[in-house]
Each structure stands twice: as C-alpha cells, then as structure tokens.
C-alpha cells in the first residue's frame, strides 16, 4: 500500500516560490557593493576598518539578543538582516570616524533599534537610521568631522596599519589634517556668515559637486550614481517598487527647483540636492525598508513624497545640514497611520469596502 511519508499536517499550497528573506537581504547587499567598494577606494583603509567594525557590531548585537530571547542564533543570523543594518549604518558614517562610533552605532542599531521591538519585522523605525541619529545627537563632533578623499594607493593615503591607527584613534593628527566640509555643511556655514550661494559655491575652497563623488562625505553620499545604479538593480529584480524612490526624489527635486528658481543665491539647485547627502542612499535603500514603510503602492507613494518633503525642509531650514535620516524616521512614525487609511480596493468592492452596485 502506498502511504505518503509525511507526518506533520500539511496544507495547500504545496508549492513555494524561490524567494526568501536571505535572498532579498543578500541582493540588497550586492546592490550596495559597488558604492561601498568605491568608498573604500576613495577614503582608504580607515573606511574599510570602520565598515567591518560597524557591521560586526551590528551582527554581534543581534546574536546577543537572539541568545537572550532563546531564539535559534545561527538560523536567524542567516537571514542577513543584521549584516545589512550594520552595512547601511557604516555607509552613513564619516569614513574616518573612530572605532567606538562603529561599535556603539552597530550595537545600538540591532539591540535598541530592532531587537527591543521584538526582532525582525517588528521594529517601527529603521534601525540604521535610529543609530545614526542617536550618534549624531550624542557625539556631534566625530559625527561631523569629514575627510577629503585621498584615494587608496595615492601618494599620501594611509596604509593598512595607519588606517587601523586612524580608526583606533592613535593617529589623531591625520584626520585634522585631512578634514573637510561636506557640501551641505559648507553651504550652510557660508550662508550663516552672510555669503550667498552664488559666491560661496564659486569660491576655490568650495567642495566640488562632482558626479563621480570625489568629495567629502560619508561613503553613502559620495557615490550617488553607483547607489542609484544599485537601486535600479533592485527595481529590475522587483525587490523594491518604484513608488518610494520616485516619490521621494521627485518631491525633493520639485521643491529644490522651485526654491532655487525663486532665489538661486539662497537655495541650492535640484541637482545638488539629488546628488549630495543621503538622497540616493535614502531613496533606494533606507526609505524602501520593507518593515518600516507602508505596504500598499499608494501608501508608499505618500510615504516617499513625505520623506522627500521633510528632507528638503530639514536641509533648508532645519538645525542640521542633512535631513534624510530625520525625514525617514518621521515618516516611519507615520507608516502605521498610512497603512490604516490607505488600503487597496478589494475586488467587487468600492474604496470604502462596500460591495459594488450591480449594473443593470
């Protein structure tokens, strides 16, 4: 007699798609890779050291919490979500930041930003951005000390050991020597000194707005084009939809063009806004985080537009030169509200859930 071997009760469907959480996370990591490698080249060994310290700390924090929660540690870590959180955080830090910034940030991201809420899928706010904002508020000096690019293998680039010494804080003079302002930071400080943008951006010491990103900033802000390419890869793989990135960048560009058009001396152009700061990283990798963004198309559109709007407002009139992290966190808080009110229309029902009228 042929009796099937199954013992546990099983039910339809008896087929599963090839997608998995680990597949999603690893593809996102792969999409980040070009920009990350470019960052390593641009800022040298210290950037690489900070990257692995931050990522390892995030994974360590996740593992500790999983152990405390008596969850299977290895199996859960295999979903690669902690790796991605640490990676995204590392890309948003000043590349020559000291080691403890990476450790505190990485641990904070997974422990406070994610596991305290109940682990994967339960957090209300984007863990990497929670950690970044915490670091920025708590340690404003190392978090705003940017370095000018000294490409790896160039004459005065620090070697592997010097890189370690910079990261571990035993070569402090190096950073001071190389420190430089980001474009937003420069524009803001010049404006506050009464120098308008037309003059300040034309000055020789102004950070160049280079398409390939050879300027001061975090790894995630200098490689805008590579990040956008990674984002397009995710769109092509249908791991993200166009709604959030498009709505965010379009809103940002629209506001920037309007304001720049009205007064170019006070407001930066749309191109500057799109290619500087965390706009690209935010649009394709941060705001599109599944857990903390709405799950309907229209909801995502509203969410993205909100992030774009808040980013512009914070960058232009807020207390910090860069606003993507704050904008994402603020819209994260609105996500449950958006999900409550924006729902897809159900087949056979109208927008309000009432059955359709029968056409006669």
């Amino acid at each position: 007699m042929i009796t099937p071997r199954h013992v546990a009760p099983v039910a339809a469907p008896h087929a599963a798609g090839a997608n998995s959480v680990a597949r999603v996370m690893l593809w996102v990591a792969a999409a980040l890779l070009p920009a990350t490698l470019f960052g390593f080249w641009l800022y040298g060994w210290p950037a690489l050291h900070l990257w692995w310290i931050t990522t390892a700390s995030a994974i360590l924090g996740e593992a500790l919490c999983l152990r405390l929660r008596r969850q299977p540690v290895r199996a859960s870590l295999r979903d690669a979500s902690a790796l991605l959180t640490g990676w995204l955080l590392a890309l948003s830090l000043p590349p020559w930041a000291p080691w403890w910034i990476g450790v505190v940030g990485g641990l904070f991201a997974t422990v406070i930003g994610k596991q305290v809420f109940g682990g994967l899928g339960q957090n209300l706010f984007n863990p990497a951005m929670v950690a970044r904002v915490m670091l920025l508020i708590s340690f404003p000096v190392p978090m705003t000390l940017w370095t000018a690019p000294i490409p790896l293998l160039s004459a005065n680039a620090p070697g592997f050991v010097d890189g370690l010494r910079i990261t571990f804080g035993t070569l402090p003079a190096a950073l001071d020597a190389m420190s430089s302002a980001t474009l937003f930071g420069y524009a803001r400080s010049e404006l506050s000194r009464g120098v308008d943008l037309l003059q300040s951006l034309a000055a020789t010491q102004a950070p160049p707005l280079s398409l390939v990103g050879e300027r001061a900033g975090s790894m995630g802000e200098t490689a805008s084009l590579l990040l956008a390419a990674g984002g397009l890869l995710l769109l092509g793989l249908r791991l993200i939809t166009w709604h959030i990135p498009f709505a965010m960048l379009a809103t940002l560009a629209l506001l920037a063009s309007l304001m720049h058009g009205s007064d170019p001396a006070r407001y930066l152009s749309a191109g500057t806004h799109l290619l500087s700061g965390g706009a690209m990283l935010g649009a394709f990798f941060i705001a599109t985080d599944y857990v903390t963004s709405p799950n309907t198309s229209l909801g995502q559109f509203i969410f993205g537009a909100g992030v774009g709007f808040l980013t512009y407002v914070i960058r232009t009139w807020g207390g910090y030169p860069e606003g993507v992290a704050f904008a994402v966190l603020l819209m994260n808080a609105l996500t449950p509200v958006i999900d409550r009110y924006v729902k897809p229309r159900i087949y056979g029902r109208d927008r309000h859930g009432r059955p359709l009228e029968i056409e006669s």
Partner: protein
Amino acid sequence: MGILEKILGRHPHWGVHPDDHKRPAADAPLRSLPLPEVLRVPLQQHVGSPARPVVLVGERVLKGDLIAEPNGNISAPVHAPTSGRISAIGEITAPHPSGLPQLAITITADGADTWCERQPVADPLALAPEEISRRTAAAGVVGLGGATFPAAVKFNLGRRLRVGTLIVNGGECEPYLSADDRIMRDRATEVVDGLRIVMHAIGAREALVGIEDNKPQAITAMRAAAAAFGHVQVRVVPARYPMGSDKQLIQTLTGKEVPADARAAEVGVLVHNVSTCAAVHRALRHGEPLVERIVTLNGGALTRPGNVLAPIGTPVVDLLRFAGIRERPARLILGGPMMGIVLPHARVPIVKGASGVLAFDAAEARTPAAGPCIRCGSCTRACPMGLLPLEMASRIDADDLDGAAGLALSDCIGCGCCTYVCPSHIPLVQYFSYAKGELSTRERNRLREAATRRLAEERAARLQREAREKAVAAARRKAERAATKAAAGAGVPPLRERVVVTPTSETAT
C-alpha cells in the same frame, strides 16, 4: 485620486506565475485505465446534501444505473461507474485531509462493463431549456473544475437571471494539471457541442471560451471546433494563476467585476468548466450519466505521468500503479498543488471533482520553515482579490478575528498566491482557513445562543402572562363571589363556589 490611481496602475497585476510542470504529462496521449476490481463511490461528491442510496447490498447493477438519488434542492445523484454487484454500503476514508469517514457504495466489478439502457437525444438544441436542466441533473453532472456545484442548479439560476454570456473556463491555471487541456485537445467538438447545449439551457447569446496561452494545441483545436459557430469565441488569456478562478476569468474576459455580495449570474455571466460542458454533451447526446472523468497523474514520484480516463470511485492506488511508481511518494495530493488537498493514504477513491492526483517526491514536497513577516508586501501585490494578507494574518495571530474579518477576510478565495510568494514562507492560507472556520463556528454559536435566549425569554413572558391572566381571573371570581354573597344576602350561598373554588387551589393550578 483618479490621476494618482492611473499612475499607480488601476489594473492590478495580481496573481503568481509558478513553474507549471504541465509537461510532459500534458503531451502524453490520453490513456484508459484498465477496469479496477473494486470501486468505492462516495455519496457526497458535490456541493450540497449527500445523495441517498437506492440500492441494496448484493444487488446487481449495470454501468450508468442510478445507485443514489439526490437529497434536497442542491444535491446530485450518483450512478454506477461499471456493471457489477453492490458489495457494501458503508463508511470509507473520504478524499479529505481530515481522513474522516464518509458514506460510499462499493461495487465489485463483473468485468463486462455493460451499459444500462441509455436514452440519447438526437437534437438537444430542440429540447426545452427546462428539459436540458432536468436531464443534466439526472445525469449527476456537477462542476468538474473542482467546485463540484450541481450544474443544473446553475442553469436554472442563469435562466432566471437572464444571463447573456456563458464563460467557458479552459484556464486550468493550477500547475501540474492538464485534464482540461487534454479534453480540449482530444474532444474539442464534444466541448463545443456541450457548451452550445449549456447556452441553450440558460438562454445565453454568446459564449467566451477562455484558454491560457500555455496551451497552444488546445487553443487550435477549440478554434477549429468553434469555427462554425459565430457566437462561440475562443479567447486567449495570459497564463497567470489563478486565471481559472471564476471572478478573475470574468474580469479578464468581460472587464466586469462580480460585486462582493452578488453572484456572477447577477452581472449577466455564468461560468462553466470545459470538462463540465463535455459531460453535458455526453449526458444529452449519448444519455450517459457522469461515471468517469479524465484525471491527471503527475509528480516526481511517478514514472509515466499523463492523463487517464478513469471511472469515478477508482482507488488512488490503482491510478498510481498504472502511472508507475518511481519512489514512495512524499506527499499525495488530490487536485493541483496550489489548492489541492492532502490525501491521508492511497486507498481513497477519486470523485467527480478530482482533476488530478499528484504524487510528489521528497524535493517537491519540501516545505520551507516559516520565519517572521518582514512586511515586504509581496502577498499584497500577489492577492488577486486586493486583500492585505499580511495585515489579516497579524490580526489572526493576535487572536483578533474580528479585526481580520474587518479586512474582508470573507472575500479570500484561498488561492494560495500569498503563501506561494511569501519570502518568509508563512502559511498564510492556513491562517485564513483557521480564522474562517473559527468565525463560522462563532457565528453558529451566536445564532444558537440567540435562539436559546429567545426561547427562554418567550417562556418567561408566557409564564408571566399566565400568572397575570390567573390573577385577573381570580380577582374576577372573587368579585363575582362577593357580588353573589351580597345578592344572596342572608340566603344560602351556591354550592359550587363554596366547595370547589378556594383561593389556595386557584394559585396552585
């Protein structure tokens, strides 16, 4: 909202596109199963009440003889699938995941497979529509796409609501299955003739045959068969699961949506499966009741997958042996992989709605472990009904069944798209089946409690009313007595009142 909706895509890209695994089974020629020795014919093979046996154990029957009659308005008769002797009427394991027992008639075949006397109709299109319904019902024809709703009941509904369009479902969107594909390739003229009889029965003006684009031979065969009939159109639809679901096929072919609280017939369409149409053809033109069907045998555990013509009541084990068993199946499924049910063992018989029997090998039966929801929204995009599976599941997980019901849980068609696409492999459909079951149990309990409360209240009211009436009667008698007493004055009071009626006896009665 209008423009936004346009940008965001008003026509939802619902559904999934699983690897269809239809070939080589679909391309293998149709074979006939050698007559099994014993057939177990369940009495419940349709939606509605089970049929009532009209034969006795030991009785001899011919193929096509009525062995169980319909019981109630929505029911269907059952006929002998071959000639032989009724050897038992009793409980067998039902083709149902619970493995619960179900009544069935067991026939020991005599091997002759002798037909009973059949009453073919030369020109069914000249019959009155009511007569077609009657004969279809008498032949035990039910929806063969899997829903197994009695076909004639739908004819009558269509006629009453003046349905103009008959949709013939040749979608067969379930992976692995090719029974409908095979019937369209091999018996296209029967299908087209059957659908013309159905059109006549419901008074439809046109028929749209929807066939998925992954069945080119079926499309060619059906086009050729329908060429002579201008009002029968064969339409190619994209291969996308669940295209074979009534609501989705109606929307794709006509652009109409069936309102949530209405039936398809109320928007002027009626859906019948291609195999059902072929069964109607045989019932009318040949006078043959529904006693056999094409079953797809497929899955990695079989050596010769393909389609077979098998009598209803054939044990699954006979079918598997016929198709050749490569290895012990890791899972046996009745129907397709997306919505099919797990069979507890291979002794269960096939029924009218059994479009396929799948014997999965270990790789096919592998179920990935479930993880936490990452709110990726894949399920929302896949849902053909526009529901929010992740939100409903999180409500159900928190035991907030009413919250899930508020998200239109009842509109879920259980197609399994959400579970299929879920990267965390959460068994969403099982959440929904569980919640639907719980909600209907609650609803039944609520109705029962309401009925009990009503009865109790009525009893209390009746007792009160009786007490009041007695009190009034007592007061009246007392007044009468006083009046009599007063009238009689010093005279002797009437015997009746003095002896029989006392205040104590009055309250006691």
